[in-house]
């Protein structure tokens, strides 16, 4: 299972790199989709079907939105003035440094697949009796940590209000002060 996971991760990385380097924005967005759908497979492998369902739909919708935005504007990537090998070298060195530190820091923690629960053990043991929900994730999302979910729904609400704010027709009233206010 771990082997498949690693293969999917490498595919996602390739997709991510292509998405960032592509010359055409539309193909960039499509290969960004590879990352998202690769994530869906990872979630399925990690026994998280709830996440896979949400991720696959959210990914589809955000791809549609991104493509709509690009069709509304331009699909041309801007010409980069020069290929900077210095930037690539610095990024690579930083990445290696970060991974080294990460490895050092987390070396003593539990290995992959050997996670021990503390807070969550109470959820797993007899959670159904506490919340009445057969799906433990739903039980946590809406009952134990329902307060988080209120925040989450509020974030979506905030973003919608923000999108409506940013995309409204005119910011300032067209009264006499308009010229000076800018």
């Amino acid at each position, binding site marked *: 299972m771990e082997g498949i996971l690693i293969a999917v*991760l*490498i595919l*996602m*990385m390739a997709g*991510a*790199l292509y*998405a*960032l380097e592509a010359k055409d*924005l539309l193909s*960039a*967005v499509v290969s*960004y989709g590879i*990352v998202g759908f690769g994530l869906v497979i*990872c*979630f399925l492998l*990690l*026994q*998280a079907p*709830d*996440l896979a369902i*949400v991720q696959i739909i*959210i990914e589809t919708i*955000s791809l549609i*939105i*991104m493509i709509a*935005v690009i069709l509304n*504007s331009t699909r041309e*990537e*801007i010409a*980069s003035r020069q290929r900077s090998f210095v930037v690539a070298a610095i*990024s690579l060195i*930083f*990445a290696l440094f*970060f*991974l080294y530190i*990460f490895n050092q820091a987390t*070396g003593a923690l539990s290995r*992959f*697949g050997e*996670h021990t629960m503390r*807070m969550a053990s109470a*959820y*797993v043991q007899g959670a*159904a009796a506490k919340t009445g929900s*057969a799906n*433990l*994730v739903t039980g*946590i*999302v809406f009952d134990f*940590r329902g307060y*988080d*979910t209120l925040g*989450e729904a509020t*974030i*979506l609400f905030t*973003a919608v209000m*923000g*999108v409506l704010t*940013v*995309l409204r027709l005119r910011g300032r009233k067209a009264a006499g002060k308009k010229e000076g206010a800018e």
Partner: protein
Amino acid sequence: MIVYLLCMLLFLIGLYGVLVKRNLIKIIIGLAIMEYSLNLFLALIGYVRGGTVPILSQDLKTSVFVDPLPQALVLTAIVIGLATTALLLAVAIRIYKKYHTFDIREIKRLKG
């Protein structure tokens, strides 16, 4: 361990996109990739080898579940990521209509 490192590498690729790229859409994609890698990271933490989906049913053989808590957290994080991306896209397209480009070098205040 290698899984975690690859996941962090994905995070760094996203970070690279945000910091180095000069195109608003690429920056947004970079942030979204960072977000995805962290969602995966949280899900990786909660995985228990041999564990099953945390849903109770009558014909359940084992009682080893994967940790449901990180999954609940990832659910929240996915929605947060969507919210950030949507708002960024809205601002980006508005900027495009003003400047007719996504190039941050031609947009006055976004340089550097």
